[in-house]
């Protein structure tokens, strides 16, 4: 009797911890979300519903320009980071041999550099060495540096489980190296690449610390939001935060659905492990 009570108490304690953790994580986001749909946006309890804030957001041409710039920045940086990270991971796993550990350390080192530092360092480097103006291109490059390390880790977890002997099989049966990649390797590892792309896209899309130094006069959503803060937290910012969150949630949701339906799965081992 005593034991079951103890067990039950433990279970409730665990549940309570779980609920509190989730509240801690999601309450602020929910609060902003609620506020963005309410007339009384600073304290929306109970909310009086309206879409005014979104109207103001989408009516504002600065936000529109900023949105497209952010989109470009996100896609550009994500594409670059994913491409480079995929190539780097392939090289690490296939050709680095004994020195793989050293290369890996160098590849993920940017993870441990403060973003502000990456921003300033890139600014100086772009200005002094590359003679690049502060614009979208230099921001894409700097964000790709940061995203590269994350993309590398995500792709590596996928490729670690990939059976490279499948490539051997393809080549023995007449596929050139590039044909092998597109016929066999890519169809089996694309979930990892897509995952890396989505994560690095979200990071670059939301980034302020790096982009701030490199954008020059180009507005992006985070930089415009940062600038707007000087005039207080306006309703548009509530709408903006919610809209950005929605995009992010949609991206992750897409990934989740793909995995749930079995369209994307992570890693391929020889089939016989599952064979009867």
């Amino acid at each position, binding site marked *: 009797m005593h034991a079951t009570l103890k067990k039950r108490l433990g279970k409730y304690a665990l549940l309570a911890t779980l609920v509190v953790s989730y509240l801690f994580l999601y309450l602020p986001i929910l609060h902003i979300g609620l506020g963005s749909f309410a007339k009384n946006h600073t304290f929306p309890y109970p909310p009086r519903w309206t879409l005014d804030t979104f109207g103001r957001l989408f009516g504002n041409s600065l936000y529109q320009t900023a949105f497209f710039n952010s989109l470009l920045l996100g896609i550009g940086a994500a594409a670059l980071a994913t491409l480079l990270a995929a190539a780097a991971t392939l090289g690490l796993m296939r050709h680095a041999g004994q020195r793989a550990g050293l290369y890996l350390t160098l590849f993920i080192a940017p993870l441990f550099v403060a973003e502000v530092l990456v921003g300033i360092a890139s600014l100086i480097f772009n200005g002094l060495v590359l003679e690049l103006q502060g614009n979208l291109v230099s921001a894409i490059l700097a964000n790709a540096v940061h995203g590269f390390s994350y993309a590398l880790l995500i792709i590596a977890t996928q490729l670690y489980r990939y059976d490279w002997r*499948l490539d051997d099989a393809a*080549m*023995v*049966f007449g596929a050139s190296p590039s044909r092998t990649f597109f016929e066999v390797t890519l169809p*089996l590892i694309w979930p990892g690449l897509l995952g890396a792309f989505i994560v690095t896209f979200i990071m670059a899309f939301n980034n302020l610390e790096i982009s701030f130094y490199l954008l020059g006069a180009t507005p992006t959503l985070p930089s415009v939001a940062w600038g707007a803060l000087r005039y207080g937290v306006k309703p548009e910012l509530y709408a903006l935060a919610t809209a950005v969150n929605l995009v992010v949630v949609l991206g992750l949701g897409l990934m989740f659905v793909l995995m749930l339906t079995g369209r994307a799965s992570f890693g*391929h081992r*020889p*089939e016989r492990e599952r*064979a009867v």
Partner: protein
Amino acid sequence: MYITLDGVSRQYGSIWAVDRVTMGIGKNEFVSLLGPSGSGKTTLLRIIAGLEKPTTGRVLIDGEDVTDLPPHKRGVAMVFQEFLLFPHRTVHENLAFPLRMMKLPAAEIAERVAWVVGILSLGGLEKRYPNQLSGGQQQRVALGRGLVGRPKALLLDEPLANLDRELRQEMEVEIRRHQTALGIPFIYVTHNQEEALSMSDRIAVVRKGRIEDFAARTDIYDRPRTAFIAQFVGRSNRFEGVVEAGGQGIATRCGAALSLPAALPPGREVQLFVKNEKLRLEPDDGAGAGPNRLPCTVKDVILRGAYADYILAFGDRELNASRPRSERAFLAGEAVIARLEPGDIDLFDTDGERPS
């Protein structure tokens, strides 16, 4: 020779995984590379496939030097131990893969896939994915993918190691039949001597990267060229001893007297192997020990179905004998005489070579 390996070696770090291998394989030959794991036999196969580059030496296929050709230009095919079917492709797509790479017209691809589906009885499975097949079915698809392109040679890397015994024996017969029908060389890597013996024309015994012997399967079994082969192929009793005065007999360390098929210089240290099935058992007639007569006690009898394995106590060592069940059966504890003919002895120097 249709396939020629000319002084092929492969170095990994300071280790020679394949060491100066020279061999020729005929167009209609079924050749096995037999050796313990780590002996370099798979590396040798991968060198022929082009998946590994030899450090030195040349590989010739059909008269052409392919040493520097990448695998996809060699026109050979391979069946892997892990099958390595493409998991994102159906059985039909897996089988069509080599043909698509050869850029054959669609009609011919369909025809050839239908042919291979027919000979391997894969009908009805074409739309399935590899993970929806049993191990045996995956094996057939892997074999079909190897045959469908009518390659210059088929390389098989322990293809039956993951199948259960019954299926394995079925596939042995089938693989051999396809080889005969297609008239192309099959090079078959295995550590399983039964597989090698049951299918091959010739067997190359591989040890530490070198070819210990490359000969007809009966020669490998009946007349092993080295002590390693005698030990590795078949199951044998090993004796050590010294050639007696007169050169006709040997006193083994365990106390047996064996007479030799041919005279040797007295005093020479040798090792001998006698295959388990060459030891004949007779009831003890009380006449005691003599040349090639070893009085033993039956310690244990292991029933194998068609034959029985006897574990015999001879002095303080064990001997193994394998007798058909059609012969007289002995029981544990019985006293028996183990007899052998001089011709049943495979004799080697202490370094493992035949005495010259």
